[in-house]
């Protein structure tokens, strides 16, 4: 009986560890002021050298800033009072699994594309409450005022000839 319980708890433990052991998708390179991350519902400070993971929301406070380099070399830098969700990220060129979608709900962001911008630019997009930014190997800035809501997902900027361009692209 005890053995069964032990095995059962070990299995749960390993499951939890497997979930925690998700690979980093980038690292914090610069940080000033108040910088935090919302991960699995809780907010913790974010400092230089820390890893970031898929589904993290990174935030900066008043007069604060944050710089992150993703695994493919994409550089993101945020000004004050910025909130950015690292929604989906994949950089596995050998498996042709490539893509990056982030949601900027408010603040200012500088984006300098890395290898994803070269290998699969159409799989990279930054979503804002009022429009979606797609790119072709690019360096740009975007500013979003606070207090705006994202439209419902299916409608998010997917119109015109680029309608439904996939967030993640698998080539073959």
């Amino acid at each position, binding site marked *: 009986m005890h053995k069964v319980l032990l095995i059962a708890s070990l299995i749960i433990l390993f499951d939890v560890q497997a979930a925690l052991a998700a690979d980093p998708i980038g690292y914090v390179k610069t940080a000033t002021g108040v910088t935090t991350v919302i991960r699995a519902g809780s907010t913790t400070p974010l400092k230089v050298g820390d890893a970031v993971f898929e589904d993290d929301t990174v935030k900066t406070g008043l007069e604060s*800033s944050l710089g992150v380099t993703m*695994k493919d070399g994409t*550089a993101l830098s945020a000004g004050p009072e910025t909130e950015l969700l690292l929604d989906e990220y994949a950089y596995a060129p050998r498996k042709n699994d490539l893509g990056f979608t982030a949601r900027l709900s408010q603040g200012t962001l500088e984006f300098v594309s890395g290898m994803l911008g070269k290998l699969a630019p159409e799989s990279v997009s930054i979503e804002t*409450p009022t429009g979606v930014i797609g790119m072709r*190997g690019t360096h740009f800035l975007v*500013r*979003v005022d606070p207090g705006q809501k994202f*439209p419902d997902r299916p409608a998010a900027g997917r119109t015109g000839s680029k309608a439904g361009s996939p967030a993640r692209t698998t080539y073959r």
Partner: protein
Amino acid sequence: MKYRVVVLALVLAAGACAPRSHNNYVVLLNNPGGGSGKVIVSNQKGRHVLNQCGGATSISAAGKAPSSTWQLGRSTLQQDFGRALAARPQRFARYTIYFDYDKANVDPSSEETYRKMLDEVARRKAVDATVAGHADRTGGEDHNQKLSEMRAKKIRDDLVRVGVPIDHIEVDFFGDTEPAVPTPENMPELRNRRVEVMIR
């Protein structure tokens, strides 16, 4: 004199109270390597392409098409993005280091590149890296797998020595399965005996 002070005060007041003409917007800048790419900004109502440095488009509402291109002035750029720009991480760097035949020693032709790479890593803060080892097609598959692993780990160990935390280095190795230059079997080829490094 008095008049001048009044004018100055008026100008300042106007500046402070002026409603912002642009709230949400995107501006294209030059790529680090020169030239600009392009961005495509879209929502339910339309799409707009920016393809010139300094060109901007406003996306003031989800129900309003992105505006036609306008030029972002230097002072607005600094005012709105100064802190974000100052926080930009250093650009990533990529290196290919070549190795001696059947060894995990750096080939003399790569020593300078290798030194430069380690200097660059030492100069940076909070580095993370990816290291991918390869072998040429002399020797068996298993041997080459092992050899490519030893090469990758040699580089990893040197990165650790100049201050990169070991858990910030991703180590991959591919034996002879990913030649840079295709060769017949058992052909020694310097260009395939390599470790590809990405420093971030």
